[in-house]
Every structure is written in structure tokens, then in C-alpha cells.
């Protein structure tokens, strides 16, 4: 496996009555954190599980570094995955959970202690899994994924159950792993978190691709370049008349005027020409959340 590119092509999964994933194609590049976004039930988890040979696709292919997961020689040395938080035997200690995986993968048992140290779980190493908090379970999942020092990391909702400090820790870890040239593919529905973490985003809804690309590009690709001007003036009618047909204006909160289609200097110049008094002039960049809601609007989450 020379590089860690993930390629999904025409991937489809038909459950009994639901087409969970519907002809999905996407590419995840190495050296970047790629956010995988979609409403609940969009097919994110099913896609990740098909990528990892846990769910059999109805049609299409999914490869990591050019190979199907099942064809990878010693997969844990190439790919690490964190799927659900509660995936260890309740009565087994965290350390023993990792040692079981080490034994199957042929890693030395010492590796278990190394990754426990990496995720800061060493003090809880000999405690049983049932006594772990949700955050500790996530850390154990990441420890398991890091056992083989993989070039590709796939994480399904890793921020679930983490406290703010844990989320920050996760963000720093994933960012630094990506900086090392690894592929980081992480699904989430926490949009604000993704905006801080991801370089690229892939948005799906109802099992289909909605948008894919660098975060700025996906946000910028939205309505009218995406930028919206909030302006506050005692004479909004006069300003709107001066702006002309290039701009679209609509009333906002607290008497503000929301203008799209033009940039902030244009609005300022128009105000000067019309001798309109301005109390506020702000260019608002849309956030990922707004883009996400607009893109996935009307695609019912419950199918």
C-alpha cells in the first residue's frame, strides 16, 4: 500500500426496505483530515462499515490504498478504525482488550501499553471496561486503532461522549496525525467541531453524495459566494434603492438588513452616495452548519 487514498465508487447498500447507501462515490486524500458529514441515518456508518469489510455492499467498491480491506495483508498495520464506543467485553480490562487484538495481529503485547500511554489511559489500564466513562471508551477505541501504527485512520463519531477537553485533545491528535501524512477520515454530525478539525468535507444525505471538497470551497460554493452583509441603518429603503438590482435584501433581526449578492465595500460606497447613516456593516461568512442545513434540507433523515 503505497499511499493511503480511500476511493469509494458506486457504493450501494440495500437493506431489506431501505437503500442506506445509494451509488456513493468519493475520494479521501492522505495528509488531510476529511470530515464525513450527514444527518442521522444518511448512511455514514454503513459506508464506513462497507469500507472495512464488516458490511457486504450490494454494489460498488471501496478501496484503501488501492486494495479492498479484506485483501490487505495484515490490515491493522495499514488501517485503524474506531467504530462504536461500546465495543469491548464489559468484564475485560482495557489492557487485556488491547492484548487480545495484539495477539490476533501478531504485535508484541508491549504495544498495548504503548498505545494506552498515547491516549492517556495508562492509569485505567487494569480497570474493567464496564467501569470506563464514555470518554475513556473513545480513548480505548483510538488506542486500539493506533496499535498497528496505521497510515489510514477511520473514525465514526469519535467526539461522541467526549468533554470539551477531550474534544480538544482529539482534534490536536487527529491534526498532528494528518500532518504526519496519514489519511484521517472522520464522520460526525457535530458541524462546528468539523469546521475546526477538517481540511476537507464530504457531505451525504439519504445515502447520496451532496458535496465534496475543501471546507472553504464547500462553504464558498453556496448561494452568492456565500457571503452575506449585515447592515444597520435608520433609512434602509434609501440604501436598498441605491444598491439597485444586483443586491437582494431582506430584513434581519433587530431591524438589521441582510444583503446578499454584493460585497461589503459596495454596500459602504452605496451608503456614502445615498448619504445614508450606517450603524453597522458586517460581512458574515456562512458557517458549515448553514451550508449543511441548506444542502441536506428536504432529504428526510428517517427513511
Amino acid at each position, binding site marked *: 500500500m503505497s499511499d493511503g487514498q480511500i476511493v469509494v465508487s458506486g457504493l450501494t447498500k440495500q437493506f431489506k426496505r431501505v437503500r442506506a447507501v445509494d451509488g456513493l462515490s468519493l475520494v479521501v486524500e492522505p495528509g488531510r483530515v476529511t470530515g464525513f458529514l450527514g444527518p442521522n441515518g444518511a448512511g455514514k456508518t454503513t459506508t464506513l462499515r462497507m469500507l472495512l469489510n464488516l458490511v457486504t455492499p450490494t454494489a460498488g467498491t471501496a478501496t484503501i490504498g488501492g486494495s479492498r480491506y479484506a485483501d490487505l495483508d495484515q490490515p491493522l498495520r495499514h488501517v485503524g478504525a474506531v467504530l462504536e464506543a461500546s465495543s469491548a*467485553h464489559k468484564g475485560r480490562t482495557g489492557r487485556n482488550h488491547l492484548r487480545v487484538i495484539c495477539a490476533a495481529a501478531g504485535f508484541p503485547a508491549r504495544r498495548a501499553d504503548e498505545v494506552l500511554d498515547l491516549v492517556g489511559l495508562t492509569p485505567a489500564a487494569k480497570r474493567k471496561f464496564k467501569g470506563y466513562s464514555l470518554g475513556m471508551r473513545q480513548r480505548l477505541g483510538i488506542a486500539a486503532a493506533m496499535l498497528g501504527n496505521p497510515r489510514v485512520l477511520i473514525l465514526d463519531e469519535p467526539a461522541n461522549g467526549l468533554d470539551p477537553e477531550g474534544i480538544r485533545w482529539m482534534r490536536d491528535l487527529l491534526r498532528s496525525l494528518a500532518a504526519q*501524512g496519514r489519511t484521517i477520515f472522520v464522520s460526525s454530525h457535530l458541524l462546528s467541531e468539523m469546521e475546526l478539525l477538517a481540511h476537507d468535507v464530504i457531505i451525504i444525505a439519504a445515502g447520496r453524495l451532496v458535496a465534496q471538497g475543501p471546507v472553504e470551497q464547500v462553504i464558498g460554493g453556496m448561494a452568492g459566494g456565500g457571503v452575506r452583509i449585515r447592515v444597520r441603518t435608520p433609512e434602509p429603503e434609501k440604501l436598498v434603492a441605491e444598491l439597485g438590482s444586483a443586491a437582494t435584501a431582506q430584513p434581519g433581526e433587530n431591524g438589521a438588513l441582510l444583503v446578499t449578492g454584493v460585497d461589503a465595500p459596495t454596500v459602504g460606497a452605496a451608503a456614502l452616495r445615498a448619504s445614508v447613516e450606517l450603524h453597522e456593516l458586517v460581512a458574515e461568512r456562512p458557517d458549515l452548519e448553514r451550508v449543511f442545513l441548506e444542502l441536506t434540507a428536504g432529504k428526510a433523515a428517517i427513511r
Partner: protein
Amino acid sequence: MTATTTTTAEPALGRPGPAPLRLMRSELLKIVTTKAWWLLLLGALAMLALAFLVNAIGADFAFGESAPEGIPAEDRAAFEASRNEVYQAANLYTSGQFFGLMFVMLLGIILMTGEFFHQTATATFLATPHRTAVVLAKLAVAALCGAVLWAVTTTLTVPATATFLQRYDVPSHLGDWPVQRAIMLNLLAYGIWGMFGVSLGVLIRSQIGATVTAVALYLIGTAAVQIILAILEQQLGWDWVSNVQYAMPAVASALMVTGTDLPGEPAWWVGGLVLVAYVVVAGGLGILINRRRDVS
């Protein structure tokens, strides 16, 4: 991949050993890092003590009594055969088998269904996407655990039986082939029942479902079938019908481990064939289903 990775400290992962050995080691670790195994061992040892007591009382009776008067010749022959010292010795040496086999089967079931019950199947199949290899490793480890329980019980029953027989001035018969065969077949039974448990676990993924089915079949089902068949034989006079009971795993197993062939019963190896057939069919079917089943 090491050439392109820019990690500061590349961890030493070592060279992996052969896959089957890795998987078996992993499965053994799964067993010894949870407490189910020693609960089952305690249960098996308690039942062993009870079974030895019952068998000893039976042997005491057999050595002391002659056949009751007025019973049919066929039954008399069976009675005389059971009076045989070798039969009693073999029976004592293999004490605890009935429940021991059940506990080994339960261990096999837990080994397989625990993966789904505790959602560890994901981690297991991520480490080894070749699911058939995982199931085969579980079969091997379950057989190994059966062998260990056999070794433990036999280590206890051999001196106990020898001491018991001495009190009746009966030799230990450990040098006799039928006794040796019974002890060896007991080992085979323990191994097969472990594998039988795993096979059942692949077929019935629910831990509770598989356990309840297995125990019900083992304890109640066998007796129920025997009673029904006995009634059929009595009422309809179908002699052959009693042979159907040997298709039940527990009866087949009991048949296999008898040191001597009792009159009116099929040969011991018929029981062995029935058991092996169960493992092959259930295990094979389970592996086929498991290969494409979605893990979520």
C-alpha cells in the same frame, strides 16, 4: 509503507507469527481474561464429584448383587455386561462426563456468541477480515479447552477410581484396552463438544438463544425424545425406532464413550460418527452464513 511515513518514532511491531497460531492465541486470551471459564470449571468439578459418587454407588451395587430372578434373557445379558468389572471401571474413569460435556459446549457457545453479545466482533474481524479463519481458530481453541477439562477430570478420576476398585479387590484395569479406549474416547468427546458449542454459536448468534437452546436440547430434549421413542416402540412395536435416539448428540456421545459394547446397542463408533457429522454440518453451515453476514 515505512518508507513514506514521517512518524517521529516508528514503533517496533515485530514480525507476526503464522496466522492460525496468532488467532488461537488471541482466542485463548479472550477466554482467560474473562471469568466465564472458571465459573464453568467450578460447575464441571462440582458435577464431577456428584457423578463419581453416583457411579461409585452403581458400581457397589453391581459388584454386590447378582441378576434379579425372572427377568428376560436379553435384559439379563445387559445386566451381566454392566456387572463386568471393565465396564464399571471405564464408567468410573469417565465420571462427570455428562455435565462436563455440557460445560465445554457452553464455553464454545460463549466463545462464539460473546463476539456479538459484547460487540467485540467488530474488533475481531477488523484484525482478521478472513472470518472463516476466526471461526476455525475458535473451533480449535474450544477443542483444546475440552481437552484441558478432560485432563483435569481424568487426573482426578484415575486415582479415585483405582482407590475405589481396590476396596473391592478389583484391579485398576488401566492396562486393559477397553478402559484405555474409554478414556481416550472421553477425550475425543470433550474436544468434539467444545467444537459443537462453537458451531451452535455461529448458527444462533444470540448468546441467550444459543445457550438456552443447547441446554434444553441437552438436558430435556434428549430425555423427551427417548421417552417418546420408548412409547412408540412399546405401542407400535417398531423395534428400529429406539435406534433413532442415537441421532441425538448427547445419546450418541454416551454411546461413543461406552468401553464395552452393550447388547442391543449400536457399536461405539456409530456415536462418534453422529457427533462428527453434527460438528461438520453445523460448523460448515455457520461458517458459510458468517462469511457474508453484516457485522454492525
